[in-house]
């Protein structure tokens, strides 16, 4: 129930509301407060005129300042390119080995490399570079192709089975699917690969497989199964393989011979980015 009454002490009217016996005086607001309110209204109107403000059906009011967040971002990126120009020039003018030897330049290359890796390489190789089934782990010291600094740089430029000119290329035949070998022969070969990677296997089958290996596999994987970096042939003695190391996985790979693809990055990145990426991948890899 609201009942307006006058406070005896101050002569001011109350608002008429009461909360547990507490009443509120209806004092006027100070005049400056009103000014602040009108100043805010004026500010809002000026803002509407100057800046993008009101949504419409086919867009929005643009404002006379011509402000645009997109243009702002474009300007900032341009500035960024200018700022990075100096570091980029240093990368361009140095050899890969020089970059790695200069702690300062190496730090810079690692930072650039990490950022580029996260945006472009992590999709397949993982954020940390650990890879996944079919995508090589870049953190160990096991390389299919040349794992030296220059070798990594080359792989980055041309890719693997990418179709680009000079691309790294090799092909693991699909011995089973293309009927190059019988199913029994492939079973025997699987046992041989198990032995090569120091695991238990059927010795009789291994004996049968040896001549087949010498004829079909040794040209790429080597007589002792140590692999060949020039052909991207994996080392068959370490059991760290793209498509898994179990008996079934080995058999599947001999049967259908999967061949992964890595794009060529030469046209997509400029020279200094490729160098930085090579240094980054080489630095995180376990040696060579």
């Amino acid at each position, binding site marked *: 129930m609201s009942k307006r009454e006058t406070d005896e002490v101050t002569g001011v*009217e*109350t608002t008429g509301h009461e909360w547990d016996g507490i009443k509120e005086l209806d004092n*006027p607001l*100070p005049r*400056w407060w009103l000014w602040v309110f009108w100043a805010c209204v004026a500010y809002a109107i000026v803002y509407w005129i100057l800046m993008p403000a009101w949504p419409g059906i086919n867009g929005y009011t643009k404002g006379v300042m011509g402000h645009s967040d997109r243009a702002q971002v474009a300007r900032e990126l341009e500035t960024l390119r200018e700022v990075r120009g100096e570091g980029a020039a240093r990368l361009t003018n140095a050899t890969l080995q020089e970059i790695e030897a200069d702690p300062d330049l190496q730090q810079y290359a690692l930072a650039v490399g990490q950022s580029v890796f996260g945006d472009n390489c992590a999709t397949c190789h993982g954020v*940390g570079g650990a890879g996944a089934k079919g995508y090589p782990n870049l*953190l160990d*010291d096991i390389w299919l192709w040349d794992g030296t600094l220059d070798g990594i740089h080359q792989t980055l430029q041309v890719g693997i089975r990418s179709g680009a000119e000079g691309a790294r290329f090799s092909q693991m035949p699909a011995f089973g699917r293309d009927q190059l070998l019988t199913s029994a022969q492939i079973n025997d070969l699987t046992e041989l690969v198990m032995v090569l990677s120091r695991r238990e296997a059927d010795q009789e089958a291994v004996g049968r497989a040896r001549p087949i290996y010498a004829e079909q596999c040794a040209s790429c994987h080597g007589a002792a199964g140590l692999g060949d970096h020039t052909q991207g042939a994996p080392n068959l003695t370490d059991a760290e393989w793209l498509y898994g190391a179990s008996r079934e996985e080995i058999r599947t790979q001999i049967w259908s011979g999967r061949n992964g693809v890595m794009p060529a990055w030469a046209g997509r990145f400029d020279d200094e980015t490729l160098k930085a990426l090579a240094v980054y991948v080489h630095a995180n890899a376990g040696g060579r």
Partner: protein
Amino acid sequence: MTVVIDRTKPPEGDPAPKGPRSAAARARGKGDAGGGLYKPRTPIYPKLVQGRWRNIKWILLVLTLAVYYVTPWIRWDRPGDLPDQAVLVDFAGRRFYFFFIQLWPQEVYFITGLLVIAALALFLTSALFGRLWCGYACPQTVWTDLYIYIERMFEGDRNARMKLDASPWSINKAWRKSGKHATWLAVAFGTGGAWIFYFHDAPSLLRDFWVGQAPMTAYVSCAILTFTTYALAGAMREQVCIYMCPWPRIQGAMLDQHSLQVTYLSDRGEPRAPHKKGASWEGRGDCIDCNACVVVCPMGIDIRNGSQLECINCGLCVDACDEIMVKVGRPKGLIAYDTDAAVAARSCGEKPVYKLIRPRTLYYAGALALVGGLTLWGLATRSPLDVHVLRDRNPTFVRMQDGDVRNSYTLKIANRTFEPVTAQVAFSGVAGAQIKTPGADVTQGPVALSVEPNQVRAVRVFVTASPEALPQTNMPATFTVQAAGATQAVTTTFLSGAANAR
């Protein structure tokens, strides 16, 4: 002050119409042509007063302003490219410099500690001595005092100012008013201008500022502070304290009847009445109702109404009243720093008791000592070296061609000194573990990493161990970093989930 609405008593002496009056009606009644519900500010013309508290206020005014204006110009030699400014909030470099102390953004808890200390100190002084901060040290009070001083220079004291405001426009009035406002604006500009020196190197900013080369933030900050200083100290004054500042509301929780506050000793002053020279003082109070306390008040209140929200405890009315008491030959201190409890005790004829030690003052002092002690302890034992170890989680480990297991860690080594340091990073916990940084050779011993002065260096560290040295899949391990005479050991783990599976 408690307002009791008591409708049992008839209204006193007010010839105003009976019954409720709306705010609008009252505004109309005062001839407010704006016709608003909004109350114009009633101008206050504080009279100049002399005395002990006024002198203390002048001294504090000069001291606080001097601290404000001089601090950014104090030089403090730091090596290399580091700023040579004693007090600097370096946003671009993300550092806070304070003489020999230098704080990083991640040490913001020291600032938190400082703010908590400041709040508790404010609580404690309020509980003990009332609103000393408001009356003597608050920038609003200091700058308002300075502005009133300037106003007095141009327009004279209270009576002259009132007369000038009431008079029609003339050359005399115009130059006095414009002179005052020009000086106010200059002071406001100086205030805003001094503020920005805390955020950039002062001498170079001063030069850049005038040639248009200073950062936009400097110009904008300077403009905003110029405006706020001019508006708050020149035009709004007591309105800031009454309407804008939350502190007068909060202080209600700090004060009690034992807090020292500017108090009218009603037990001694009442009943008040004008006094003729030579008349007897028998049967009456010492207050001669001269209004000296009211005219000097910068808040425009009558202290004789008791403690009230508007009062900032500045003590100018104490000085004004003492002056009068000396003139009429009565003892000083009719208005004094006193407590409500003492006034109540004296009016009952008892001896007043002053209690400085009370539960609330003990709590505040205890909390202040605790937080202050913790902050000081934190500052004193602050290491010049800060090490964080982030182990790679994707993947947790990698197996190498020869069967060894490798774990990767990112070490963040912060060098908080002003000299370049070489940190010796050692790894322990796994027998025969080899340690390597990108591009460097594998080693068994500690790795030396140089860290630039005042910088953090993040380095990936690879640790390789043979499966024979890994009896568990999860080995507790420690990175020990030595640099700048400090050693930090950070525990982590060496994982080798499948190392034993084969």
